[in-house]
């Protein structure tokens, strides 16, 4: 089993190295480097930025991220279930039915509370 994952590991390294080589090649070997203050200023509409760009933002984004974690976990639970469905039969379906039923209650709750609304 492990020997199947060796190419995967090597591929990940090669992928990262490709990105690195491209940036090094493009940015530091082939391309010119002539920075000046105007060129290096952050993109704005022609004037100096008033404040730091790292601003506080709507808490809704955190909520989306939290809900995403929960649903991602649900998917992680569904994956093994889906591939052993033949073996566990009616019992397995009922177990997952209860599981999803409880979570659908949560989903309805967030829907009714308006957590999924964006203006």
């Amino acid at each position, binding site marked *: 089993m492990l020997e199947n994952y060796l190419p995967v590991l090597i591929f990940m390294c090669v992928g990262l190295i490709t990105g690195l080589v491209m940036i090094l090649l493009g940015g530091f070997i082939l391309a010119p480097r002539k920075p000046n203050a105007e060129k290096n200023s952050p993109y704005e509409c022609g004037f100096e*930025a008033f404040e730091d760009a790292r601003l506080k933002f709507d808490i809704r984004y955190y909520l989306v991220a939290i809900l995403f974690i929960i649903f991602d976990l649900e998917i992680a639970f569904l994956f093994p279930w889906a591939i052993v469905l033949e073996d566990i039969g009616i019992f397995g379906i009922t177990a997952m039915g209860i599981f999803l039923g409880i979570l659908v209650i949560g989903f309805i709750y967030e829907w009714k509370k308006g957590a999924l609304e964006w203006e």
Partner: protein
Amino acid sequence: MIESMMSFVMPIWEWLPMWIQVLVTNVFFIVIIMVPLMLSVAYVTYAERKIIGYMQVRIGPNRVGPRGWLQPIADAVKLMFKEIIIPTNSNRFLFLFAPMLSMGPALAAWAVIPFADNIQLADVNAGLLYILAMTSMGVYGVIIAGWASNSKYAMLGALRSAAQVVAYEIAMGFALVGVLMAGGSLNLGDIIDKQAGGFFNWFWLPLLPLMVVYFISGVAETNRAPFDVAEGESEIVAGFHVDYSGMAFAVFFLAEYANIIMIAALTSLLFFGGWMSPFGSYADVPLLGNGFHWFVIKTMFFIYMFLWIRATFPRYRYDQIMRLGWKVFIPVTIVWIFVEAVMAVMQIGPWAV
């Protein structure tokens, strides 16, 4: 000639330690996958400009080389010689690291794709799960790029893109659960084997709603039009990569297109039988039968769909995107998973395992 070269090379090869042999063979195969992939990426950009051009009744690039065929090469060379501008207020290390972060997973996901019968770099059991994990890592490149640039446009683009990708990833995951139920395995090769027997045995038929959800989520995941609010030109210039230039920009671009090809390839693998021939009874006849060319044709068709969708639909508003992801796709997929599970256990119709 070749024999004499072989007799010269083979002893050296055998003299090398085992781990170098393994490494070299693997890197060799990876290069065989990656070079055509990079070329496809280059020519998908060309195809995109040309096809959308014709759809909008204009010609598209036609100056570099005959009919503009050398355009992508020219673009690549130009980007290579462009300066990478690193804004003063940015975080230098993360600014340059972000493109790599989006490139790495976009390429690494290709390790487990079966290109034809038994032609696959890594035949892992949890192949589909691995691909899902890799695609979920793509969001890092975007968030880090947006933050490291320290520009408002980049920041807003990164936020929008992250929230959107996250919403559609759930719909995508649920759609994949349906595929797993039909395929009975996480191994991509097994999933394709289950679809043997021609056009009407492929999974698109029993899983039709999931197929639609999967493909649209794929379009949204890759931030393509009509879901491209992350780089909506009229609102936030170019989104998370406003401040990127030269090769750093090119790496983002490559990763984005590698992801598009990935989604197209996955749609063809999971719902349209991958390298299976649509004519089930001719499975062993050359050309009409199963083979790599069918995989390429199907993948090209779905890449074309991406371009077609882009040329057809106007951009969604952000609240519409979030509504579609959370309130339409997730309920649809949950209901369909239930239908499929009950049907599979009752042994009804095409869902019978």
